[in-house]
């Protein structure tokens, strides 16, 4: 069967070594203490461990609420809503599964599970590369999760994002990822703007 692939995803937030959350399912939104690191589109509603099997959990469990616009205290112009996620599919001399992984991990809107609709920003440069095999070869903290949940596009030099105020910005692959991380959170106290 052939499916159409998407090229952009919702921003579920910032991954840090403190909160260790991808924010892409309700179950990820455990403690309230780091909720400010969420993006505007974290996983909400009942947690489905696997959408193809009946949900073993009660519907009320892990039922996080959508982010309200008043919770975006970093400013809607300074918070990423959607961003491009498309990457090159190629094989790798060192990782046998790289091409197959890259193919499987493209954006897919019909599948709400984990990262197919959402990305999260990691504080690693490889999270904003459009070369999936390169991301895997580099490796490092969070392994391939940094590649699955990253950002990128097939046009040169970077990718586009839509901010929560509706404006569109081009993000360079040369951006300081800590700055991009600050643009990924709704309420981290960082009112950093790109210009």
């Amino acid at each position, binding site marked *: 069967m052939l499916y159409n692939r998407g090229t952009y995803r919702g921003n579920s937030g910032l991954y*840090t*070594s*403190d909160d260790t959350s991808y924010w892409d399912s309700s179950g990820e939104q455990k403690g309230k203490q780091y909720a400010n690191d969420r993006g505007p589109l974290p996983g909400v509603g009942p947690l489905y461990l696997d959408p193809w099997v009946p949900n073993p959990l009660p519907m009320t469990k892990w039922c996080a609420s959508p982010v309200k616009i008043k919770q975006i205290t970093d400013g809607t112009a300074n918070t990423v809503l959607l961003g491009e996620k498309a990457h090159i599919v190629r094989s790798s001399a060192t990782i046998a599964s790289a091409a197959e992984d890259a193919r499987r991990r493209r954006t897919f809107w019909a599948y709400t599970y984990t990262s197919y609709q959402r990305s999260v920003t990691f*504080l*690693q*440069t*490889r999270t904003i*590369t459009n*070369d999936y095999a*390169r991301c895997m070869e*580099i*490796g*490092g*903290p969070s*392994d391939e999760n940094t590649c699955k949940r990253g950002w990128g596009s097939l046009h040169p030099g970077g990718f586009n994002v839509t901010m929560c105020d509706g404006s569109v910005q081009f993000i*360079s*692959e*040369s*951006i*300081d*990822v*800590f*700055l991009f991380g600050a643009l990924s959170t709704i309420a981290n106290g960082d009112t950093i703007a*790109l210009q």
Partner: protein
Amino acid sequence: MSKLRFALMPAWALAVLAGCGQGLPVAPASGVVLLDGAPLANVSIMTQPIATNSPNPGPGSFGRTNAEGQFELELVKPAVRGAIIGEHRVMIAPVGEVKTATGDKWPTSFSDGSLRIQVPKEGTKELRVELSRRMSKNK
């Protein structure tokens, strides 16, 4: 506009650019990671140049320590040896799911970007990332 400029560039200039990180200010950078003064083997190093004048200081670099704690940085993209000249945040993390002997969590302060290195214009082989168990008590 940039396409036009590219077309007017002589072939030798393109060759030079391709050879040194597409015109990025990159210098060779290698060194050692120490934990309480002893070499720290098989850890991942990630660096990110810090935005100062521009939000786009250039891509980060990565490396891995050998048995002697030594590492050499390579740019994430394009794949060339070295790192962007200037100040970087440094993140040190275990490779894969490694637990310390005492079962401690990997210290947040080793990988939250609070560590810094400086890559000089002429490059360096003398980078030192010094970690201590004392600073790991912070979190």
